């Protein structure tokens, strides 16, 4: 498991990336992160939800209630045009950052 601080810096990027393909509801996002990381990254509702709300307040994602027959309505979040731009920027920044960190770590070993 990773430290809370380490996870914190990447959560926004993870959410934006998972919403790139299609809209998803809040709990689904947590489960997807857990599944795709092979269980190494886990987010509880209590830590993921404020980030969802913050991204929505920044207009990077947009929540919309979806009702299905026989079920309680769910709030699905989708990426906005602004969110797509932010995702491209954050992805490239992340790649640069991890590349730089890897370079340093590799340098230590060399």
């Amino acid at each position, binding site marked *: 498991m990773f430290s809370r601080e380490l996870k914190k810096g990447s959560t926004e990027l993870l959410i934006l990336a998972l919403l790139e393909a299609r809209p998803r*509801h*809040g*709990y*689904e996002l*947590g*489960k997807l992160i857990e599944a795709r990381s092979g269980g190494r990254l886990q987010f*509880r*509702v*209590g830590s993921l*939800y*404020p980030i969802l*709300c*913050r991204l*929505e*307040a*920044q*207009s990077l*994602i*947009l*929540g919309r209630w979806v009702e299905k027959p026989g079920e*309680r*309505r*769910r*709030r699905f979040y989708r990426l*906005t045009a602004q969110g797509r731009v932010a995702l491209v920027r954050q992805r490239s920044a992340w790649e640069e950052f991890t590349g730089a960190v890897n370079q340093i770590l590799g340098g230590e070993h060399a």
Partner: protein
Amino acid sequence: MPEWTKYIRQNLHLHGLRPDREAELIEDLAQQLEDAYREALAGGMAEANAVAFARQHVPDWDSLSRELQRLPRGAASALAHLQESADTASRSRRWWAALGGLLRDLLFGLRMMRRDPGFTLVVVLTLALGIGAASAIFGVVNAVLLRPMPYPNAERLAMIWELGKMPNKAPEAFSVSWQDYRDWRKQVRSLEHLGVFRLQNANLTRVNPPDRLQVSMTSADVFNALGVRPLLGRLFVPEEDEPVAASTVILSETMWRSRFGAAPDILERTITLDGMNYQVVGVMPDNMRFPARVDCWVPCAAR
């Protein structure tokens, strides 16, 4: 099933948030806790353990309350944020955004239609039938109820029937007899004009080819009541309501043009209807369609 909404309201403390936004937050969170609870149940957990598992998703309510409270005030919902932006945006930008949205919806609709042509066909046919039926009904309602009759003082026109009462039956409307009509004419003081008419068919002969005509037997006052004027010649006069009067006829404009080539001397001619000669005394314009679109009018007493 646990009442997650109630549980969240007991633990989450938000101040100054719009009530509708607060209700949305709570509903969204409740749904997520319920998802966790259901997942635990599906995984074979006992009810109490499933509840505990879901509750562990928010171990620190004070921390969550603080974080939600820190969200930009008034822009807690992206929707609210978008609305605020829209309010301040220029009118033309909003117009273009609306147009873009409309175009996207239209393209989406077309894609959906192409995906399922059978369903599209059923929908289009249903709409076509519905619109067609509504148009037809409106056409009738417009002609019968909405559009005024093409006569001056149309609101003062009325149709009168006799009411026949049969034993053990609802009263029925009957045509007025000639004798009753004459009595009414003598006695009624509240009507300005009182006329009668009757539709009938007649054979037009001594022309080539002969023809079957729609004829209206009409008393002189019908024309006065309607306030119509002839295209050529004159209307019937009260004397022509009497059986001893000479047989006269007023032709419709269509009849005059189609069967008599719009002859200028038509008022000097006679026509033969069912073997009887009728002197043509007038031609009515085509907009006179009372009591229906007929070929000619003859006085009531003529036949």
